[in-house]
């Protein structure tokens, strides 16, 4: 709001929002355009592009068909228009700089998995008018060539500058998505490996037996061709087992592998979990014999079982199950692996969804959708919004007056979030039955030691281990020229993309912008600042990174001390998170593990958390290291704490999704706070907890979107009612406005529109009562500043009329049916700006921004007025109250140029600010709230 200029022509963000059918506004084609050339939008740069909106494209370099587009976000064919996705996929996949080394490196016997860092490239196609940030990533697939599947995600925009200037954020966002995908992929890969290993072992044991039988049957010294073949096969299988075991080792060592990609911020929970599960697997398979001389009991048992199988006619599974009595039914029957599993081109490759764990895939898609959403609008808009947000974090004193809560704002904030996107938080279950990571059913079958008791407390402890590896961005010192280099390369290779000069310029510009960002006083919120300066140096191609690998092992070390300090606080919640998550994973994977209750709860939780997690994904899943957000997040987040473990009700379940997150946020904020700005942040943290302690009426937070929608209503109100100004004045000067009407819909609409003007409406609009159908009392007036009142013609109605007339001195009455307003006279100037019924503003969102800027100005004046000492208190002891009074009047009238009535607005706002400052959480104090008013005559305005 601060940054919103009075005329904002570039508010294009509501193109995808559902437009509510507006009965009063002419359809677009009938209205006279403001400018003669409607389509000559000076801000529109997409005019020559073949697509209308920025979008995200995910494509794959398929080993069978080559580059192919997989999906776009938003998934709307309209978006891409005539844009050739296939061609563009080819383009973006052709600039893959990932050094994907696959195969057997010399000197090692086994195929090696390549740990490929993502690469980030900006490329352009001026002919198509498309520019793209391209993020390449590699996923593992056991069946794929070299075990890798190259993918890329691209943010396609028509505005090159937008891509360039948003590079850091794009990179961050896509890194998160990529990490998320990769985390899921590793999981899936490990699972697949495990399965494969089981198959191999089974095959091995079968072959062994066959061989043994043969050996027994045949003469000792004679080797039939068949026997040789069997022996070869056995050897092959053994080799394969070794290979796969090694692969498993490799994949589990993934996390120890130093990350050179500074953006590769992984979720600690994922890391720990994955590590743990891989370790468990490794341990298990290390024990498993490949060769018969090192049989363990376990396997012997298995063999016995299989021996029995031979005897009994071949049902190993049943036997095995009997052996491991406690075990449940295994989900997976090992299969014999044919010696030749040829890779043929007609084999079906796994889809992206299969490659990554379903949950992770969903989370990534959410993340990308969120990214797409947050980058809507053009550069100027994004920039303004960011400035706005950065500023607003400093305006805590007046922020509560007219601003929506920042957290939903942050939903579309594209900033660094060091935590994982795989919603440990978004699908965060309060289930407290944490088995250790069980990737597949094998442990269930093979070791009887671990009954899949989800409530085994001993196992919980293993979850508490925390490795803070890469929790925060480590500041790497790779060469600063990397990025230019990279872009240069890309520009060389792609036709029509920007030249190196251009990219250099872009960089320069960016640096400039960084500089100006930096020139701001060190603000606690500026996620921008650290990103920008570090990111410049951060981008590097993977080759270069390879060379600088030595420097990179500081990822863990650089975890700030402050952060480590809060870890202990975090642990409890983390534990829950982990547990919840593992539970979820387990039930995902252990299909036959039909703990009925568990599954039921699972299903329930999915349902419960799904609707909530979608809109709040941004805020929920990507904790932002700004303490401001903490404050705002708090109320939702900590609410469930108050009703401890409200498992039963789904509505209380969903806010719980934000629970752990908020703790994380808080601690993160605190950690930041200690780094950057102690006082401010601690203050925010404390206010956060204060607010959280106050049980707000959980009416749902008023979101920016809602407010923008209300902007349309407000605009309509202003255009429709000539006395709108008076009504707005009433609201702004603290006089309760009663909207009286018989039609609920109309009253509610009016209330929603007018709610924009209620100062300090409360987090969930507590000061607004949209629809009341009983007579109100004085306390209601004190509580609500805007009331929608039902007009009823009955005894109830007469008592309502009585209360209306009785308290008429405290209220203004807007009659929605008769279109009258009864309120004191207002002649002021201030509001004529926002309540001009001949306004040229036609769009609700534009009006909303206009309104916001006006209100912001008022708030700023009120702030000045409130905190100017000599306007309230005598300067010297000789001064009487009259002098102060005179000075105040002089200030209001002459310096601020406010009339009598306008001054009332300011006085009211000032009063609110004072109260807010004195009692940040009014509810906690025992004293009843004050209700101020004045005695002035009301007049009746008619249309």
């Amino acid at each position, binding site marked *: 709001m601060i940054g919103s200029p009075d005329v904002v022509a570039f508010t294009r963000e509501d193109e995808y929002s559902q437009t509510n059918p507006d009965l009063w506004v002419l359809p677009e084609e009938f209205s006279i355009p403001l400018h003669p050339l409607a389509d000559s939008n000076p801000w529109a740069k997409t005019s020559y592009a073949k697509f209308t909106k920025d979008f995200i494209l995910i494509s794959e370099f398929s080993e069978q068909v080559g580059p192919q587009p997989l999906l776009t976000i938003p998934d709307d064919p309209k978006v891409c228009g005539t844009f050739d996705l296939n061609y563009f996929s080819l383009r973006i996949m052709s600039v893959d700089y990932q050094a994907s080394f696959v195969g057997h490196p010399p000197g090692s016997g086994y195929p090696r998995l390549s740990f490929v860092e993502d690469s980030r490239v900006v490329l352009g196609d001026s002919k198509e008018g498309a520019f793209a940030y391209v993020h390449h990533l590699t996923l593992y697939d056991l069946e794929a060539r070299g075990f890798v599947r190259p993918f890329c995600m691209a943010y396609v925009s028509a505005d090159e500058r937008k891509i360039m200037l948003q590079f850091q954020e794009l990179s961050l966002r896509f890194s998160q998505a990529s990490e998320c995908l990769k985390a899921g992929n590793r999981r899936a890969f490990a699972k697949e490996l495990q399965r494969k290993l089981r198959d191999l072992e089974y095959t091995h044991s079968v072959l062994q037996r066959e061989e043994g039988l043969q050996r027994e049957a045949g003469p000792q010294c004679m080797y039939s061709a068949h026997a040789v073949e069997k022996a070869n096969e056995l050897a092959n299988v053994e080799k394969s087992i070794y290979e796969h075991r090694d692969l498993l080792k490799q994949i589990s060592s993934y996390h120890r592998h130093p990350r050179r990609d500074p953006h590769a911020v992984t979720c600690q929970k994922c890391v720990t979990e994955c590590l743990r599960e891989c370790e468990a697997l490794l341990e298990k398979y290390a024990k498993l014999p490949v060769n018969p001389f090192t049989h363990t009991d376990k396997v012997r048992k298995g063999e016995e079982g299989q021996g029995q199988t031979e005897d009994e006619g071949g049902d190993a599974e049943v036997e095995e199950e009997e052996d491991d009595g406690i075990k449940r039914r295994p989900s997976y029957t090992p299969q014999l692996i044919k010696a030749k599993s040829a890779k043929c081109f007609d084999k079906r490759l796994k889809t992206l969804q299969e490659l990554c764990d379903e949950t992770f895939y969903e989370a990534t898609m959410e993340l990308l959708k969120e990214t797409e959403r947050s980058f809507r609008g053009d550069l100027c808009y994004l920039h303004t919004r960011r400035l706005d947000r950065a500023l607003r974090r400093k305006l805590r*004193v007046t922020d509560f007056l007219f601003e929506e809560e920042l957290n939903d704002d942050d939903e579309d904030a594209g900033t660094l979030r060091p935590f994982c996107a795989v919603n440990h938080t978004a699908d965060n279950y309060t289930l407290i039955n944490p088995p250790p990571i069980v990737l597949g059913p094998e442990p269930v079958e093979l070791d009887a030691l671990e009954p899949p008791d989800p409530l085994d407390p001993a196992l919980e402890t293993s979850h508490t281990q925390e490795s803070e590896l890469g929790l925060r961005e480590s500041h790497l010192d790779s060469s600063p020229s990397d990025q230019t280099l990279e872009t240069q390369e890309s520009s060389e290779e792609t036709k029509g993309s920007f030249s190196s000069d251009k990219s250099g310029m872009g960089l320069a510009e960016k640096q400039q912008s960084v500089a100006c960002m930096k020139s701001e006083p060190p603000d606690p919120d500026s996620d921008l600042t650290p990103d920008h300066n570090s990111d410049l140096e951060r981008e590097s191609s993977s080759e270069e990174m390879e060379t600088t690998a030595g420097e990179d092992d500081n990822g863990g070390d650089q975890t700030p001390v402050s952060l480590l300090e809060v870890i202990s606080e975090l642990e409890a919640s983390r534990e829950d998170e982990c547990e919840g998550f593992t539970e979820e994973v387990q039930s995902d994977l252990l299909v036959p593990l039909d703990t009925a209750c568990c599954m039921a709860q699972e299903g329930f939780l999915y349902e419960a958390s799904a609707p909530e997690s979608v809109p709040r994904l941004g805020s929920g899943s990507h904790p932002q290291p700004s303490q401001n957000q903490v404050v705002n997040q708090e109320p939702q987040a900590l609410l469930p704490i108050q009703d401890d473990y409200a498992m039963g009700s789904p509505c209380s379940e969903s806010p719980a999704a934000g629970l752990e997150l908020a703790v994380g946020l808080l601690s993160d904020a605190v950690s930041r706070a200690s780094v950057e700005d102690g006082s401010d942040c601690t203050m925010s943290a404390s206010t956060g907890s204060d607010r959280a302690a106050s049980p707000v009426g959980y009416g749902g937070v008023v979101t920016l979107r809602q407010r923008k929608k209300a902007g349309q209503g407000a605009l309509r109100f202003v255009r429709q009612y000539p006395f709108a100004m008076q009504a707005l004045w009433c609201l702004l000067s603290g006089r309760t406005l009663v909207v*009286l009407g018989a039609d609920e819909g109309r009253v509610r609409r009016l209330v929603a529109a007018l709610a924009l003007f209620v100062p300090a409406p409360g987090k969930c609009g507590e000061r607004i009562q949209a629809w009341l159908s009983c007579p109100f*009392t*004085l*306390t209601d007036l*004190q509580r609500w500043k805007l009331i929608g009142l039902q*007009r009823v*013609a009955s005894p109830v*109605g*007469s008592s309502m*009329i009585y*209360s*209306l*007339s*009785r*308290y*008429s*001195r405290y209220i203004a*009455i807007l*009659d929605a049916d*008769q279109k*009258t307003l009864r309120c004191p006279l207002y002649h002021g100037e201030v509001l004529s700006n926002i309540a001009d019924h001949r306004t040229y503003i036609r769009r609700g969102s534009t009006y909303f921004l206009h309104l916001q800027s006006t209100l912001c100005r008022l708030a700023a004046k009120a702030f000045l007025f*409130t*905190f100017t*000492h000599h306007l*309230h*208190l005598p300067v010297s002891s000789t001064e009487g*109250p009259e002098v102060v009074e005179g000075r105040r009047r002089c200030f209001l009238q002459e310096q601020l140029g406010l009339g009598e009535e306008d001054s009332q607005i300011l*006085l009211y706002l000032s*009063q609110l600010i*004072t*109260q807010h*400052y*004195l009692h940040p959480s009014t509810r906690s*104090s*025992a*004293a*009843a*709230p*004050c*209700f*101020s*008013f*004045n*005695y*002035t*005559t*009301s*007049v*009746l305005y008619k249309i």
Partner: protein
Amino acid sequence: MFRWILGSREAQSSVEKNSVLCIGEDQPKNWFTELQVLKGHFDIVRFLVQIDDFRCASAGDDGLVLVWNIETGERLQELRGHSQQITAITTFNCNSGLSLHISLITASSDRSLSLWDPDTGNRVQTISDLQSSVKCLLVLEQLCLWVSGGEELCVWNKDFQLQCHRQNHSDTGITALIKLPKNCIAAAMDKEIVIYRVTVSTDSSVSVAEIRCLSDHQDRIRALISVNDGLFVSGSHAGELILWDSVDWNILAYEHILWEESSAQSEIRLGAPKTSEMSIQHLSTNGKLILAAVGSGLYVYSVLTKTVMAYRKVAHDSNVLHTVLLSDSELMSCSEDGCVRMWEIQDLPLPAEPASSGFFGMWTFGRSNKQTGPASKKVMDVPNVRTLKLTGDLIGHSGAIQMFVSLKENGLITCSTDHLVILWKNGERQSHLRSLALFQKLEENGGL
């Protein structure tokens, strides 16, 4: 008034019937521009007692006594103990000790008396199983005694020990007690006023003797107050106002406030006045003037001239329950109609000047130009009579306002049948105080 809202004539006609003046919404002299609703009671709140400069206690039918901070509106203490409604409450301030400590004495329908410490909320003393419930309390500070009146008159010392008591011969019991000079007490019992004398003998035993019985009232005595050292006044249900000499208990003046005599018009309109309409509900004084609440009207009686110097026959929509004289010219009244009104005793306007609200009459909702004609006309007939001008009203309660206490510059506290206590304050002063607090906090915090 709100005809435009309902589209019916109903509201309008009710206004027309109503001849009570209405000041409208423009009240420049009304400085109560801020209020705080103090919630806590769950039945009718009947009594308010100011404990000291910053505390006030409220008591009501729920048997609760709540102690409020009148500066912040915080509830400081909740005195629980009585099982039934509280019938009388008074502060007890016996400076026998070194420190002056204020306690509260309450009497309840559960036939118990309690002494409370408002600082801690403790029930210091309690006496239950009285023969009858106490209806009024009187503290005799010099003697360090206090008197309870009900069906019997009991004298207690500060340790809640019964010193002596006197059985009553009247059925109704004592309804009011006042202190008179020379350790005398006047007790109102039905139509009589009985004068008792309390004597403390040398062995500190206390005795009460009935000295005189004044039975000049024709009807039940509703109000009994002492005006100054030499005067006390009583008002009866039939509208008799009698001034008594405090020392020799003679009648100094007898005023019978009857409407028929003063206003022919009202007689026509209202028919024969019911006694309830001339009953003296409440009396208050500042030593020079006596303010009598008669039915729904107000009469200001001058002690010096022994005449009614100003009056307003219909000051409220219904019975006036409590009044107070703030100064020689300002007074306040509250009524069953749920509003507090502030009045000013003014010299008569020139006869030519109409008593309408003038220009704003067309804007306000019709009520203000229906100023009571009779009152202003009346004034012209009787010389020396000044008028009571309404300067403001406080609307907030939704039930009858039982009582109010003026807290000087701190404002006003009212209690009502709607279970609420409302603290009315001067908005400007509060705003100033808040500013002070703000800059103080700012200083403590070292800036924003």
